């Protein structure tokens, strides 16, 4: 079953901040859903191929031909914060 530590670990992986009281309610929600999903364990899926795509499409490619990029003025209109044509973010410390 899913523990509060699992919830915290998954929240960390998901980059979502959880306040302490949220951990408990999410743990209950997820446990209930995971509990329901457990029914899949009843099925025998030996030798069953997984389906990642509904259609059996293969070999979809693009030719190596250059098309115009976006105009930078247009691109940077979406930016929350910018400097010198680049997206500005908090200092990344290695």
């Amino acid at each position, binding site marked *: 079953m*899913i523990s509060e530590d*699992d*919830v915290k*670990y*998954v*929240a960390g*992986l*998901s*980059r*979502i*901040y*959880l306040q302490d009281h949220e951990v408990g309610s*999410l743990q209950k*929600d*997820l446990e*209930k*859903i*995971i509990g*329901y*999903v457990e*029914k*899949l*364990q009843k*099925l025998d*899926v030996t030798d*069953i*191929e*997984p*389906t*990642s*795509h*509904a*259609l059996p*499409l293969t070999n*979809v490619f*693009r030719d190596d031909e250059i098309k115009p990029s*976006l105009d930078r003025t*247009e*691109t940077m*209109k*979406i*930016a*929350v*914060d910018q400097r010198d044509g680049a*997206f500005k*973010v*908090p*200092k*990344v*410390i290695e």
Partner: protein
Amino acid sequence: MNLNELTAHELIDQISSSQISPQDVHKSVRDQIDAVDSKVKAYLRLNDNPQNYDAASPYPIPIAIKDNMCMQGIETTCASKILQGFKSPYDATVIRKLKDSGAILVGNTNMDEFAFGSSTENSAFGPTRNPWNLDCVPGGSSGGSAAAVAANEAIWSIGSDTGGSIRQPAAFCGVVGLKPTYGRVSRYGLIAFASSLDQIGPFTKDVRDSAMLLNIIAGYDPMDSTSADVPVPDYTKALTQDVSGLKIGIPKEYFIDGLDAEVKAAIDESIKVLKDCGAEFVEISLPHTEYAVATYYIVATAEASSNLARFDGVQYGLRSFPEKVRKSSLIDMYEESRDQGFGPESKRRIMLGTYSLSSGYYDAYYLRGLKVRTLIKNDFEKAFESVDAILTPTSPTTAFKVGERSDDPLSMYLSDIFTISANLAGIPAMSMPCGFSQDGLPIGLQLLTKAFDEEMLFRIAHTYEQNTEWHKRRTKFN
């Protein structure tokens, strides 16, 4: 009837004979929005600079767009705070096709945040109401698009369907909603929920309009690797009113305990209508039906957890910091932006999906989900060896009350029990009105066919529609 209550094919007849202009139709729609949208709340925003009106273009029809399709220069939010202020620098392929056909883009409609939901209550900007009964939900996640057409606030609308998000609100709102075959309509510019399940489709007042709108939006797109390079027929040619000799399957697994008696009665009645038109009905089995919801919530949330990772405050949308530094300023920005930006259901689904992909759980959940998906797909392939189409209820119940299920995510998930399988199998499915409950709420029937056989859907649906009157009912507001 007011212009906004007509179908597109009726309007196009009048426009091409110069009785009315596209402006007249748009004005009629805008007047209705002014009159009723404060109650229905179908729209998140209206487009004040729609395309030029061109009566000569093939489809100068006012259309509403679900707020998860990118429109150049216009805010697209997926009804989430995290995307507030994001104005796409490009058009989705579907939007470009609509613009090219002369459609009048009325505005963007409300939805469950990132299409996570079945009631449109998960919108960060407040719920949409069912135009037939404002105390009820319109269904979801494309509730705004369904309600806009049902409330005559648009002639057409576009939605997206990942597990029933077009068909269930179409059923709740008494309109025709179609989820085409996966790959039939380009997903380029559709903000992804679950990439392997998402498909864009039309909401219309009748089946002919649905065929017309699919004609516009369907087709191969080199920008979408998963779009199918399969020729697009003229779907209006399939509207023949001839079902004699067709074999339609009734899956026994769909007639379950939770099925509302009024819904069951309406479906039984529809079967009779089609029988009278010459169709043959046989009971079939789709044995893995009971696993569909569980499979769906594993596969869809896993993909969603990855698709929604990009909303992080780095480039666009919401960027937020906590008051006190917790970790590093970068991680704090990620975690606070996502905490503030996502609603509870989005967080739940992102976490569920992350969990099922995470180290140690992948095989037990995600991989197993993909394998059960194969079994569900095989069920349909086997069924279509002996039947031309499958008929089921769209939803076990009619529209429920606002707030009724919002505290219980699992009961909400189970309301998609009849629609989810079509997405897992990639096949086309349509919901159309087939009756009303005693308290005046619409009931929907669902038709399913094999992949790329939308023509069969249109053929059966049109025949049924021409022998019933449900599609002619219109909502009324005091």
